[in-house]
């Protein structure tokens, strides 16, 4: 007999497979919205089960649920990107794509359950180049004197947690509370692809939005 958590993960994977076709731009928007809603409801269940696993001290299951949740989050964001593109919201669409790429990376790091997500990762990097113009990325270099652990809140030097690794359903990261920005550079491979140059001057010196090509003052950067 299969363990309930295995059945839940299998059902999550089935939902993932069922939702994948809606990551195509041509799909009907109302079907895509339904798919987003279904994933959102399922993510709530994942959160509940993850909390339960954490309380039980079942770190492996909590990490597996973190992984599956990230994978579904990646698909959800990709469908959202399609809707935003259809709705003339290129900046929101870009941010959704970046979130989706980040989520699939997280899914693969969190647990071996999502080791097979390389195909989705490649797909997301491919659509970055097919659906959007080449971006100009900005990246920050900063200095800090002390970092804290996001898992146990102690000084990062003093605990055993390692940044980037999952612990009982959460990733460890260094929390930097006081930093001084040293430089901002234009780079090819930023950690955060959401940091992009948003406007550029045309030959008449008029500023244009780099994604929509509308004059910058007419572009609302999709912040609605």
């Amino acid at each position, binding site marked *: 007999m299969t363990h309930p958590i295995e059945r839940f993960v299998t059902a999550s994977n089935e939902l993932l497979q069922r939702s994948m076709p809606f990551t195509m731009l041509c799909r009907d928007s109302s079907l895509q919205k339904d798919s987003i809603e279904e994933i959102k409801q399922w993510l709530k269940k994942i959160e509940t089960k993850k909390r339960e696993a954490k309380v039980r001290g079942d770190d492996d299951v909590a990490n597996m649920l973190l992984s599956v949740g990230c994978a579904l989050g990646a698909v959800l964001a990709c469908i959202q990107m399609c809707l935003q593109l259809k709705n003339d919201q290129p900046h929101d669409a870009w941010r959704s794509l970046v979130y989706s*790429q980040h989520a*699939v*990376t*997280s*899914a*693969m*790091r969190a647990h071996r359950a999502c080791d097979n*997500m*390389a195909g989705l*990762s*490649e797909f997301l*990097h491919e659509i970055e180049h097919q659906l959007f113009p080449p971006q100009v990325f900005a*990246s*920050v*270099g*900063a*200095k*800090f*004197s*002390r*970092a804290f652990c996001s898992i146990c809140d102690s000084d*990062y*030097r003093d605990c*055993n947690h*390692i*940044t*980037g*690794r999952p612990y009982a359903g959460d990733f460890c990261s*260094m929390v*930097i509370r006081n*930093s001084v920005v*040293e430089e901002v550079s234009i*780079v090819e*491979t*930023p*950690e*955060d692809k959401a*940091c992009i140059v948003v406007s550029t001057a045309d030959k008449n010196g008029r500023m244009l939005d780099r994604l929509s090509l509308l004059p910058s003052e007419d572009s609302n950067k999709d912040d609605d």
Partner: protein
Amino acid sequence: MNITVEEYLDVEAKSQSLGFELRGPICMLPNNLDELSSLEESIHFSSALTLVKLLEEASIPASIMEAEGGDRKYLVQKNVTWYGPVLLFAAAEIAQNPQLVSISLGVIANYLTDYFKGIPIGEQQVELSVVTERLRKTKTTETQSTRKFNYKGNVEGLRILEERILKECNDDSSN
């Protein structure tokens, strides 16, 4: 992949002048060691903090050359490239434990394999420096020099770096 080798300053003498005692098989040197007049000015990449823990997991004690409890400075770059610290392997430690370089670079490679999951292969870049000491003995003299290996490339290339370091260490011991 790119490996450059350069002659480096006398780390032992520099650390003494800064009042820092080199201890343990591996020490992470400040990025700006050659410019330092006091330890308070030292700057390390933030990866040094993580690497100390990773090496400790593999039972390799490691230290960071910096001021004790004082004003420390770490540099964080919001870039996909992993900027590793400057690792000093003391000659005596390598002689005592020839596997030290292999194990340490293996620890880094394992960590980075997870770190780069889901990142396109072309974007998986590592920058890291390794400093080793060289002791040359003749019948009448004994001279020490220090070399710095600067590595830029992917995770797999760390094996080539390891081979290059070990080859030069072996060349020294056979002289």
